[in-house]
């Protein structure tokens, strides 16, 4: 019934700000918290250069201002320079989100000539042994440090992206120092968000409450001390939160994601919601997908919200939280995000965080394309557990 009603909604006329372009799911690294789906898209179905040019044309027409070239590892595509040049020609701000290990001085120069404006480089830890173990890539950390210096020597601005979890949080202070030493302009300290691969590896990644508090203290202190030298963004983990985050600033409100094969989604994890069908740029215009497609309209705004969200004073702030997390933990994408303390599942979420972070970490399940069916994800929460 709700679907029928939503099918008649007026087209959404607010323009999007950003396009997250997942150019490929190929990646030399195997981080166990990868934001790509468990079912990685194969190389032989990837959009061609001409497809991406058309997507960028349509995105600019629609109002997109920034394109985030991501993956997998976007530098695995030989046509990255062409894609950057096309985006820049349209006036789009071009941001490369990379693990860096495939870059060298000549490629960085070519990308810069093509018009690249910003590089976001991931680091898995401050110390090589930890970083290479987490990334599942030998000598990757050393290569990243070289690449970071090359990026800065070229005069490009650099953001260091540090995904943090129980196995590297003891190196957070050193990561701040490393970002400074590398000449980064920004540091993004992002606690793991538990979807897909990270959900699969949750027990190996979940920090204790004490670790989280220590990290927050380091970030706050560093922010003060380094203001004007190093900007620090901080993403806190839902499992220890009281309120949910307004995922992607609200479903289909500011940004969208195009997968390597051309599926368009409100966020990179949205494929985990089986009831939604995501249209492809091969079959539809971006304008129709953004403004009218049922998957984008489904959770827009606040009309669709269930209780207790519907009557909550914060509904325009967090929009009921994250749909993918509601799907993963409540088994219903339209439920209140269990990260909210008003969710009946909130206490159970806390219990999971407490239990998993206190137990010894299991081995990582590395992110790799799989031939066999993947092992099941951790189970849904039930309110009964929450006593």
């Amino acid at each position, binding site marked *: 019934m709700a679907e029928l009603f939503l099918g008649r909604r007026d087209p959404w006329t607010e323009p999007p700000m950003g396009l997250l372009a997942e150019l490929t799911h190929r990646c030399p690294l195997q981080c166990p918290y990868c934001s790509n789906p468990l079912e990685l898209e194969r190389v032989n179905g990837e959009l061609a250069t001409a497809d991406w040019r058309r997507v960028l044309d349509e995105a600019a027409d*629609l109002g997109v201002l920034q394109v985030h070239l991501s993956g997998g590892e976007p530098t695995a595509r030989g046509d990255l320079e062409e894609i950057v040049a096309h985006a820049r020609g349209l006036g789009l701000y071009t941001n490369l989100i990379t693990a860096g290990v495939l870059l060298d001085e000549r490629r960085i120069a070519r990308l810069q000539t093509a018009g690249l404006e*910003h590089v976001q480089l991931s680091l898995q830890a401050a110390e090589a042994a930890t970083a290479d173990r987490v990334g599942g890539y030998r000598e990757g950390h050393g290569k990243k440090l070289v690449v970071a210096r090359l990026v800065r020597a070229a005069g490009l601005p650099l953001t260091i992206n540090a995904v943090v979890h129980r196995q590297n949080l003891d190196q957070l202070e050193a990561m701040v120092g490393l970002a400074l030493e590398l000449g980064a302009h920004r540091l993004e300290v992002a606690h793991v968000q538990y979807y897909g691969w990270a959900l699969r590896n949750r027990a190996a990644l979940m920090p204790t409450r004490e670790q989280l508090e220590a990290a927050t203290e380091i970030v706050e202190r560093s922010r003060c001390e380094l203001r004007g030298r190093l900007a620090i963004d901080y993403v806190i983990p839902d499992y220890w939160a009281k309120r949910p985050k307004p995922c992607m600033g609200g479903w289909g409100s500011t940004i969208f994601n195009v997968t390597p094969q051309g599926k368009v989604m409100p966020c990179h994890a949205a494929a985990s919601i089986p009831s939604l069908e995501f249209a492809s740029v091969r079959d539809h215009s971006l304008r129709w997908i953004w403004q009218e497609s049922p998957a984008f309209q489904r959770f827009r705004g606040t009309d669709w919200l269930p209780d207790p969200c519907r009557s909550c004073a914060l509904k325009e702030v967090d929009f009921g939280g994250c749909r993918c997390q509601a799907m993963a933990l409540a088994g219903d994408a339209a439920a209140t995000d269990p990260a909210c303390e008003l969710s009946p599942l909130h206490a159970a979420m806390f219990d999971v965080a407490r239990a998993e972070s206190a137990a010894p970490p299991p081995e990582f399940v590395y992110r790799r394309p799989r031939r066999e069916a993947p092992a099941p994800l951790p189970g849904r929460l039930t309110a009964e557990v929450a006593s």
Partner: protein
Amino acid sequence: MSLDALAETDRVALPAWVRLHFDRVRDRWVLLAPERVLFPCATSVTILEHVGPGRSLGEVVTVLAQEFEAPRETISADVRQMLQGLADQGFLAVEAGHG
């Protein structure tokens, strides 16, 4: 470093990677920066059009004071507040000038 207030002699410019862009879809100016889009007001856009390589903060204030026939102190306060905000976010290239 940028915690220090900007000096009149400081040369101020947008770095190459922070770009003032006219957005045809929204019909307004936007400032594009790493992982950020800022929506400057009309006054801010005017200030940004006057900063540039080699120009000192004092020169920007002088030019704007003449253009708008306004007291230098008033213009100076607006310019400083706006540019300091950008500097604190790391979106302004500041080079110490010689008094």
